[in-house]
């Protein structure tokens, strides 16, 4: 049991197909975004130490706000490390430096009494650098080539990506839990609406669609928003268990953030950038840049100076003007929304699209069970040419299919045109796809990565309780594995 659990955990942790090229490109985008982010720590030095109110954790080790010069030094170091990340120079060190300095610098500002939840954006470079985001589109890759060392494999290390996705899921859950405790699901409370009013008046968030929502009287819609928020935030930790689920959840979260921005003017573009690590940036056609050996040598020689001068120079320019900062946030949210919508469209197209190969086959079910019979006949009714529903009792030689009576008494089987067998929920999903129409959409959903494990659990539960289902008889009870099959075998269909 323990070995199986370990093996499953390892498979889950290391599964995935993200490439180093994709991560290398994402690294560049991340660094550009983070450099334009207002990493402003020194304002907090204007407050006296008596205002120092550190959150629980390592910031309590400090007795007050550091002097402005120290905070400005951290800002400069943050910028220098991000320029190194941008160019992919000493990438892993630079990435971890950005993470540590960012967490520390913002930690001082959060010790003024308000934690801004930027933690995912700050942790990302350290975590993802372990996946190999510095191995492509980087000076490190150039140095490796120049030194004659073998290129690292194109497939990135997947565990840091899984870890990052898990961290996103866990952090979202912390947003859902207080809402659940605080009565967000109570139909008499419209929490999103109340919060929008609070933001409108207390924080002066009156732009975009805020005015429209302020006077919107639609309790059902507001209540639906309360529920949707909880579902997204609490469900994220389940969705990130698979890569398809992660992408679906990140796309949904991006559209959620866009909605929050339009309604409450709260900018979560930092989170949208974080979600970007799951996008397939390697599918974007880009010209290949291959410098000559002499140019590569020049680049590598100049790297320390470029990083240092570029970082400190950029820091000296100061924060973006507010208008440009808004444009930056808008750009990220818009691009995120477009990518998410495209992805959602692609998924729907896959769900609705025609299957690539033949879909017909044989659905083998338990003819003694009324519920199973009705279900199988429903699946076969629309396209009997594609779904051949047969009772296992009518099959002359079960063993020829590699099945025993125990197998078929416990679950249905689908035998596709290639002869391959699919059991349980996968059988039902395949039959639904073959049936076509709306059932095909349901079948594709059941086959999809995030839903399939859940569907298997539901199928198992339904199979175990099928004697309670409509049209069932006592004969529907699932026998224990190894028990003698019920009654005589049926001779015909």
């Amino acid at each position, binding site marked *: 049991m323990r070995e199986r659990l370990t093996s499953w955990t390892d498979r889950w942790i290391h599964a995935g197909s993200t490439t180093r090229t994709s991560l290398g490109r994402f690294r560049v985008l991340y660094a550009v975004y983070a450099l334009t982010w207002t990493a402003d720590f020194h304002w907090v030095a204007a407050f006296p130490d008596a205002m120092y109110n550190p959150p629980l954790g390592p910031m309590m080790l400090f007795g007050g706000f550091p002097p402005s010069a120290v905070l400005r030094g951290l800002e400069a170091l943050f910028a220098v490390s991000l320029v190194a990340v941008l160019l992919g120079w000493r990438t892993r060190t630079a990435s971890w430096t950005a993470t540590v300095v960012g967490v520390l610098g913002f930690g001082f500002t959060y010790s003024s009494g308000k934690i801004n939840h930027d933690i995912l954006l700050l942790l990302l470079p350290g975590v993802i650098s372990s996946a190999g985001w510095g191995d492509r589109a980087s000076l490190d890759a150039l140095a490796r080539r120049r030194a004659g060392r073998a290129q690292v494999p194109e497939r990135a290390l997947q565990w840091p990506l899984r870890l990052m996705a898990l961290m996103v899921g866990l952090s979202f859950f912390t947003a859902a839990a207080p809402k659940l405790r605080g009565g967000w699901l109570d139909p008499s409370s419209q929490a999103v609406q109340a919060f929008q009013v609070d933001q409108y008046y*207390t924080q002066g968030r009156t732009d975009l669609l805020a005015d429209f929502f302020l006077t919107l009287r639609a309790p059902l819609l507001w209540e639906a928003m309360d529920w949707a928020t909880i579902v997204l935030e609490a469900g994220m930790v389940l969705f990130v268990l698979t890569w398809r689920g992660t992408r679906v959840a990140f796309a949904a979260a991006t559209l959620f953030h866009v909605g929050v921005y339009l309604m409450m003017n709260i900018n979560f573009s930092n989170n949208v950038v974080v979600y970007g690590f799951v996008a397939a940036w390697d599918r974007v056609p880009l010209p290949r840049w291959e410098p000559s050996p002499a140019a590569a040598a020049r680049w590598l020689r100049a790297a320390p100076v470029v990083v240092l001068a570029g970082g400190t120079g950029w820091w000296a320019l100061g924060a973006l003007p507010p208008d440009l900062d808004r444009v930056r946030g808008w750009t990220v949210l818009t691009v995120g929304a477009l990518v998410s919508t495209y992805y959602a469209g692609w998924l729907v197209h896959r769900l609705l699209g025609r299957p690539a190969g033949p879909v017909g086959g044989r659905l083998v079910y338990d003819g003694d069970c009324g519920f199973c019979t009705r279900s199988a006949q429903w699946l076969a009714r629309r396209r009997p040419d594609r779904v051949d529903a047969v009772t296992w009792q009518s099959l002359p030689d079960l063993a020829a299919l590699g099945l025993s009576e125990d197998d078929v008494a416990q679950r249905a089987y689908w035998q596709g045109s290639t002869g391959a067998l699919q059991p349980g929920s996968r059988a039902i999903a395949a039959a639904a796809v073959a049936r076509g129409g709306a059932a095909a959409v349901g079948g594709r959903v059941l086959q999809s990565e995030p839903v399939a494990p859940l569907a298997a659990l539901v199928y198992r539960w339904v199979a175990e309780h099928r004697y309670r289902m409509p049209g069932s008889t006592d004969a529907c009870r699932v026998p224990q594995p190894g028990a003698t099959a019920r009654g005589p075998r049926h001779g015909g269909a």
Partner: protein
Amino acid sequence: MKALVRAVFAAVVLTWVAEVGVTAVLGPEPYPALYQPAFGGAVPGGGVAVTRQPAVLVTYADGSEATYDHDDVMAASPYQRASVFRSAFGPESPRRTHPENVRWLVERVTALGGGREPVEIVLEDHQITRELGTRKPPQVVVTARDTVDLGSARA
């Protein structure tokens, strides 16, 4: 290597569980921690939104008066000035009477008053109840009112 990676995952999950546990017991949110904003958590229900807003009422030596809000006083903070104000000067804040903070507040309202000397500073906390979906004037209740001891700033 695989065992090490498993240990990293276990450490992250266990740390998160510990952080959530600490928050459940002690209340405040830790940092650094895997948290996202709870957007207010508890809600009042009954078709109203209840918010809190501070006010700083200042009487200057020349007899003039001014009222400032958290945005005015905490303008140095680029975000969530209400929370930052509450942390320093909110009715529950143990830091609100600290001489250093009082001195800073005096300097701040002096600057806001264009150099006029404050002779009295009153900190108020308002509970504002608004009916959802309307623009009706809110119901404002002063839930806390404290006169700042300016003597402590001069000590």
